[in-house]
């Protein structure tokens, strides 16, 4: 792994630019995808951007019988190979943080793949609450 995705909740203003960036960058057939990141509010005007933590011993990877979830050793992201996914929803149910999602628009399972090394959310985050930094 050469990079790390860093979230600084203190800097998050809940502007939801990241959500938009994510949805647009994962658009298919001119339809936006479901965002893989959610700045959720835990107190008045206080937000935590929730997204996949790319766990080391990931429940989603363990739950997949088809080897569809595999770690990209360069970006550190656990990527979902849609060609191998049969939508059994095991990963969606198993992720303890609720970060494997089902996208009703494209009718497929989605999760954060760090945009293959250039996460759009971090790119567009105006406050730099989201950063993708070299180790």
């Amino acid at each position: 792994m050469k990079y790390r995705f860093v979230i600084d909740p203190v800097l998050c203003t809940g502007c939801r630019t990241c959500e938009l960036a994510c949805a647009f960058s994962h658009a298919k057939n001119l339809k936006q995808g479901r965002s893989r990141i959610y700045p959720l509010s835990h107190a008045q005007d206080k937000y935590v951007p929730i997204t996949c933590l790319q766990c080391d011993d990931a429940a989603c990877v363990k739950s997949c019988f088809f080897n569809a979830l595999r770690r990209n050793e360069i970006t550190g992201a656990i990527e979902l190979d849609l060609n191998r996914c049969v939508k059994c929803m095991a990963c969606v149910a198993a992720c303890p943080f609720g970060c494997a999602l089902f996208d009703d628009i494209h009718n497929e399972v989605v999760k954060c793949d760090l945009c293959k090394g250039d996460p759009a959310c971090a790119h567009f985050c105006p406050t730099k609450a989201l950063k993708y930094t070299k180790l």
Partner: protein
Amino acid sequence: MVTIQINGKLVQAEKGEMLIAVIRRQRIDIPALCHHDAVEPCGSCRLCMVEITKKDWDGWSKFVTSCLYPVEPDLIVSTHSPRVVELRKTILDLYLARSPKSEIIQRMAAEYGITQTSYQEVPDGDNCIMCYACTRVCEELGCNAISAVQRGHKKIIAPPLGEPPVDCVGCLSCANICPTHFIEWNDDNGKRTIWGKQFELVSCKICGKKTITRDFAEYLVRKRNIPANYFEICDDCKRTELTKSMGKIVIAAQEISK
């Protein structure tokens, strides 16, 4: 790495890789119904057949299913030679006689110029095209709840003894992988029914949203060592819970730094 020729173009491929992967990487549209990356190839639909030859084969060529043919050095592949196209047409024509109502078959056949089958429609023909995707996916899961029954033209996919399958966990993988959407199921009132078997869907402890079946959750706990409590709440509520606990940490951290 090996170099092969596809439709006249030199292409690099991984050794041992199946031809279909290389062909599709070249964005060449090659039809297939039984092929799916999640499961072992079986070569039953015969649509992905290509014509192969080599320079030293003296003009001789053979027809192979690209999903089941590992690349070899110096292979010369034609994905749309006249014989191959003729073969695909015949196969689609046969499919259309068997499953005239299947949309995907209609669409694929139309792409090869067939809108009406040349043959007699098979009496009681249904949309099951016997591609084994469902049985293979079930085998991959380790459930083996369904299998091909009988043989030849009478072959169907069914649970053992035609009764609700004991080993089924209701994960819907079979229904999802089915290229013709033939496998029926429904979720209603917290219950899921598939293959004549009824399953209880797990309700989120917090919001009550229905997730996967209780059997599948237990199966994942048993087979994949995932803590049972992971399945108690839904993904939405999990994120909210995570936000709450993260929030506490953030506030506490801010307090300390002050």
